[in-house]
């Protein structure tokens, strides 16, 4: 039986930001490792490395996950969206634009994770209450700005999206 010596590789297929990939990854590699080291998608950040801070948040089939503790092998065949995929067409999303106008970014390290979890929220709950936004943000830590501008940006983006959908 193979012991701890050497990691065998596992073959995975992923759709990341609308592009298909077939990869060989070490058995214990995290999705974050695969995205950053193999696909050069450095938007998702590694901060705590323990699934506690949310800087590594990406969407798997539309749902937010902490990619730093998710085994890459277990998302075989799934669809991944990282912060790089948000402005895929070259235009910022309403949420990204709202982050800019509300100055919801300071050092920027947590921003990719915040954008992803809020993207999932606005998809799930298009007209969220402030409590919904706060609850969605509970797993994504910002140590610079405080959360007020971030919450206001999310609420503003929701209203903007509702208006543009109905106009």
């Amino acid at each position, binding site marked *: *039986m*193979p*012991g*701890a010596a050497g*990691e*065998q590789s*596992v073959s995975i297929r992923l759709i990341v930001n609308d592009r298909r990939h077939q990869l060989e990854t070490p*058995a*214990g590699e*995290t999705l974050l490792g695969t995205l950053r080291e193999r696909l050069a998608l450095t938007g998702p950040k590694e901060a705590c*490395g*323990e*699934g*506690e801070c*949310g800087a590594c*948040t990406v969407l*798997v089939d539309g*749902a*937010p*996950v*902490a990619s730093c*503790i*998710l*085994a890459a*092998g*277990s998302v*075989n065949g799934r669809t991944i969206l990282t912060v790089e995929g948000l402005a895929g067409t070259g235009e910022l999303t309403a949420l990204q634009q709202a982050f800019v106008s509300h100055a919801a970014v300071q050092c920027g390290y947590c921003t990719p994770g915040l954008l992803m*979890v809020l993207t*999932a929220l606005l998809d799930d709950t298009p007209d969220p209450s402030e409590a919904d936004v706060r*609850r*969605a943000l*509970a*797993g*994504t830590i910002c140590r610079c700005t405080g959360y007020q501008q971030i919450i206001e940006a999310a609420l503003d983006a929701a209203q903007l999206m509702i208006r543009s959908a109905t106009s």
Partner: protein
Amino acid sequence: MQFCRVRSVAEAVDELSRWGTEGRILAGGTDVMPQYLRGEQSPAALIDISGIEGLQGISEVGGVTSIGALVTLRRLATASLVQLRHPALAQAAAAVGAWQTQTVATLGGNICSAAATADTLPALLVADAQLMLVSKSGRRRVSLEEFLEGPGATALRPTELLRAIEVEPLGERTSEGNLKVGRRSAMDLAVVGLALRLSVTPSGVVSDARIAVCGGTRSPHRVPSAEAAIAGSQLIDGRLDCAEAGAELASAAVPERADSAQYRRRVLPGLLSRLAERCVTAILGAGG
């Protein structure tokens, strides 16, 4: 290390019998992966069961709810069937970590990790949860109470897989709830967690009370002496006096030498009163 992806229960039990104690089951991985990444665990194989579709359903079988071991905490927290029939479980699942955790973390994982702080376990204990275990040599059914053998320790054999969890839905004139106290309302372990399931007769007598706690030094557990202190009580003006049960709960569930024992002992009676009030209101509101 090898990564074994299995697509069915049959494949899973094959791999488990092949690897024995050298294999580690990977479901959502929110416990297993951090332990592996920190070097606390170095299994020869991760047996990834997350793709087994047969373990992802919630169904009603003969009056009980059967929950597949891979049902995620997010689904438990948001599914209307769970909120209606198993509100304490839905509330407990919503209290675990944050959205990112709940997306992948599974009920089976929370049970098999068997942490003293496992948030869903009190709600499962008051619903008399039964665990369906399967291995290459057969199936067995074990109550959650028997399954838990101490923090991090369970009766699961190395070759066994938890397949499903069966829980009793709420009966007539019965309600339940779950409350957690941590240092934060998200992303933190329970200092204490409490679940209460309460049944009241039309004449206002408590016919059944089940109380379970987590967050102490032991595995999550029922507290029979506190249950006995409520059972048979008469509601007075639509209220249930929980003072005696609260005092009993505090002393029975928190050993003197436990960390923050004084704090836990002060918090628990208040949680019990709030849950009792919530349950009584729901029962009286539903049927008078």
